[in-house]
């Protein structure tokens, strides 16, 4: 059976088409004000990429913040919606079968999931505070006046430790501005920013416990500056699978393929 996973995140919608245990197509795009419209566009792009139509797809499962927008809504017609942590566990297990701990950091939420055989054992969610997710890095990039893609590479050029006082996105923006005025280099500031968010995320992961293998997924995993401070805080090396931002959608597709789970 060919299945599809639709992850309607806070910022991006991701779709994975899954056939015979393999990903045959992926697509993603920004979610606009019309969530359903954005999801449909991405879904159709993925179908086109795979050379398939909706009727070729056996089951569609949705996940992510906007998952309910696509359930029973044509043409996606997702049959089921699952929570992000459930999709994370299934997807991480598919990508890295030795996974025990998943760290998923998206645009607006950070999650820690303890995985047992592809299912959720424990989880912790760092929600509703922008300082705990990708939004923080984006906002700081604006304050530093660099593109968000430059943040990671900049941070990797620094070996300095500058603790940030502010724990709020809004106050941190001002702190970054005063660091700039104090002639601290952009590299050092970028590192301080990554250290700060890594500190917050790793504290939450400690609540589910760190057990190898530790897998990092979500949009933030694309940032090369994200993993190193996390590895340092958690005293373990971390695996970032390819296409980490699609792992949750992959999980939804896997769940769609195994309805008896």
């Amino acid at each position, binding site marked *: 059976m060919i299945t599809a996973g639709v992850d309607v995140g806070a910022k991006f919608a991701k779709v994975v088409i899954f056939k015979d245990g393999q990903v045959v197509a992926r697509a993603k795009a920004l979610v606009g004000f019309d969530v359903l419209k954005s999801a449909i566009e991405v879904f159709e792009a993925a179908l086109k990429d795979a050379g398939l139509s909706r009727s070729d797809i056996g089951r569609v499962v949705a996940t992510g913040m906007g998952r309910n927008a696509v359930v029973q809504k044509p043409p996606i017609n997702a049959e089921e919606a699952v929570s992000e942590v459930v999709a994370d566990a299934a997807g991480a297990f598919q990508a890295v079968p030795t996974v025990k701990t998943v760290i998923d950091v998206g645009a607006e939420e950070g999650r820690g999931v303890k995985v047992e055989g592809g299912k959720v054992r424990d*989880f912790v969610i760092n929600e509703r505070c922008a300082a705990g997710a990708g939004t923080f890095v984006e906002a700081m990039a604006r304050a530093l006046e660099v593109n968000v893609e430059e943040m990671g590479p900049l941070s990797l050029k620094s070996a300095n430790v500058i603790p940030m006082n502010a724990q709020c996105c809004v106050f941190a923006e001002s702190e970054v501005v005063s660091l700039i005025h104090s002639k601290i280099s952009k590299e050092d500031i970028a590192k301080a920013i990554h250290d700060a968010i890594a500190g917050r995320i790793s504290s939450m992961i*400690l609540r589910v416990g760190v057990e190898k293998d530790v897998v990092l997924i979500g949009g933030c995993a694309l940032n090369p500056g994200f993993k190193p401070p996390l590895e340092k805080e958690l005293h373990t090396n971390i695996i970032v699978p390819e296409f980490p931002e699609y792992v949750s959608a992959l999980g939804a597709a896997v769940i769609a393929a195994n309805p008896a789970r």
Partner: protein
Amino acid sequence: MQANYGYKDGSGDYFITIDTDKCNGCGKCVEACPYKVLELITNEFDIEGGTMAAVKEEHRKKIKYSCAPCKPVAGERLLPCVLACEPKAITHSW
């Protein structure tokens, strides 16, 4: 006096409250905390003076994260600071 150290943000309320009328300044909570979140300070709230426990300045804005390792999602949640305090002066709001 109820000294509430911590904050409320979008994700919830996180306060460690020290009842300074009960606190005898023994410092056992300071020693018990594995993450050095607490300290003894001079009472600067009234003219009586004395010593009392408090959350360190550096932890007040990130108490949710500082105390996270002692609050596992699964399993026991025996807080070392609360256990160490004989007069029961310290409480966590989460």
